[in-house]
């Protein structure tokens, strides 16, 4: 009887302490670090809508660390180190790592539909409706998001040297 009482009492104190204790886990502190290790192409190849949702998913433990093709090996290594996990090869379902490419608009075919401009996550395409569009090579992250929307298939990815 007394034992039960003591256990109950202890459990009560414990419950009180837990309820007052703020909830953070080891992983949550790593969110910023993981996000900054991602290439910020917002390409969605990881099956998440952007880099931030993917970083959040990693922190929650939903997503694996090898789903970012643009970041490739370097990114995987960095995240693995941040989380103390084993490095693993890139998941081929998400895509393959390749050298940096940037989008190039074939200006003879462009009809000025602004669809690619809307798709670009970093505002790297210049142009206005019914005007020819052009890619700012310096700003392009090579996410390929502008390729699919183009009705003329006039956007191609070109490898960058250097």
């Amino acid at each position: 009887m007394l034992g039960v009482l003591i256990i109950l009492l202890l459990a009560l104190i414990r419950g009180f302490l837990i309820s007052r204790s703020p909830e953070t886990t080891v992983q949550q502190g790593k969110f910023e670090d993981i996000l900054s290790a991602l290439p910020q192409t917002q390409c969605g190849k990881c099956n998440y809508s952007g880099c931030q949702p993917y970083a959040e998913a990693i922190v929650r433990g939903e997503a694996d660390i090898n789903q970012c093709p643009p970041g490739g090996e370097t990114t995987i290594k960095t995240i693995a180190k941040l989380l103390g996990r084993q490095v693993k090869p890139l998941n081929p379902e998400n895509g393959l790592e390749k050298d940096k490419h940037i989008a190039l608009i074939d200006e003879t075919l462009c009809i000025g539909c602004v669809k690619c401009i809307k798709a670009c996550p970093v505002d790297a395409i210049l142009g206005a409706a019914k005007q020819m569009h052009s890619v700012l090579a310096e700003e392009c992250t090579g996410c390929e998001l502008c390729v699919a929307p183009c009705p003329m298939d006039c956007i191609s990815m070109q490898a960058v040297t250097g």
Partner: protein
Amino acid sequence: MSSEVHTRFNRELHSFPGGLELKTHKELTNSKESLRTPLPDKIILPLQQHIGSPSETIVKKGDTVLKGQKIAQASGYISVPVHASTSGKILDIGTCQSIHIKSEQVPCIIIEPDGEDAWFELEPVTDYLSIDPEILQRLIYEAGMVGMGGAGFPAHVKLNEGTATAIDTLIINGVECEPYISCDDRIIREKADYIVSGTRMLQHAIQAEHCVIAVEEDMPEAFEALNALIDDDIELVTVPARYPAGGEKQLIKVLTGKEVPAGGLPIHIGIVMHNVGTAAAAFRAVTRGEPLLSRYVTVSGNVEDPRNLQVLLGTPVEHCLEQVGYHPRDDEAVIMGGPMMGKYIHDISMPVVKTTNSILVTSGFNRSREKPCIGCGDCVDVCPAKLLPQELFAYARAKDYEEVRALHLFDCIECGCCAYVCPSNIPLVKYYREAKTDIAIYEKKQAGYEHARHRFEARSERLDRIENRVDDRFDKIKTLSTDQDPVEEDKQSYIRAAVERMKQKKNKKKD
């Protein structure tokens, strides 16, 4: 003899950590008179012979230039002009193979000499000790002067920084610690007067309080030549022959006992160092108005007549080698620079540049296979920067750049001592260079990530803002009519029409 001088100036010598005692092989070349190299068929002048940004061409293809005429101007603070080393016609402005820090292909100007070697109009300044230091600096800058010891840091930058801070000591470095090279030894013996006057001039240019000329203890003739000319205003010191005693930070440690802060410059502790070659060339540039057009180059190794040459800048290496009897062999390599820090050149049509101190033909590069590191720690003992080469190597190979940086990779001077002693034959320096390059790439990438993220966030914010406003407008429109948005419909039809038009065009093209 040297002890006398030591006591005369009470300079106590210190020692730097690590280092090696190497067989110098300087006897091959240091007792032979240097020769002027005849004009080559072609002069190739790379626009980047220095650390910093490349110079900009100011001549056109087909122009005729005179010897000493400026053909490219500096493109920034850390940059210098380039001058034509002889008179002739500009054959081409293109790219060439050259020894340079980062890339192998650099833009260059190719001159076809006319054989007359006609001088451009020169403007000598004789009262160099009484003019304003800033004018002196300007003259030296206009002459395209860079550090001639090997790194090629623009000389005027060191001088300018010198006037900005109070300089305690100017050190003129005649310590040639790399084996085989004797061009500094020769230039001191042959041009001692230039060096001593040049030293006084540089001292005036940076307003240094003290001035030291340092030579190595195995160059007694050079010491005597200088000793005969100097007064009490300049200290002449011999330092023990120990590789890499001629390294900037190492020599400062030996002479003053001070350590240049890691990641810092000698200027931070009130010291400026120039090579003896720079002093001589600077003197020439000011008193005779001749810009930097030629330099002493040691050509040594497996050649018939190893010796020092006075070579016009831009002369192909091949041409220099012809002067001393070179017979190419399969197991040999030609190296620009010394055997410890030089660079292998696979194309001997490459030109001699402002930083070329030596051309070496060696068969020593054939090394046995790389074995695993056994952690013997020999490299730790010889490292002059007090690093841990074996750990650097392990982390560099594992591409753990965070750790590599924590181990001070960027304080590595790539002197090669560690690789020299390594019993496992590991080319450690190669790994460090690769790691340095990779880190630079990684940082660029990371900066790109950061930039992209910034832009993405800005865009998201803007879209949010617009959406809110659009929503407001929609609400207004909705209250007015329930019809489809006319603007939107117009857009759609426009796109459809345009697509049709272009498709027809495309088809036409195909036909």
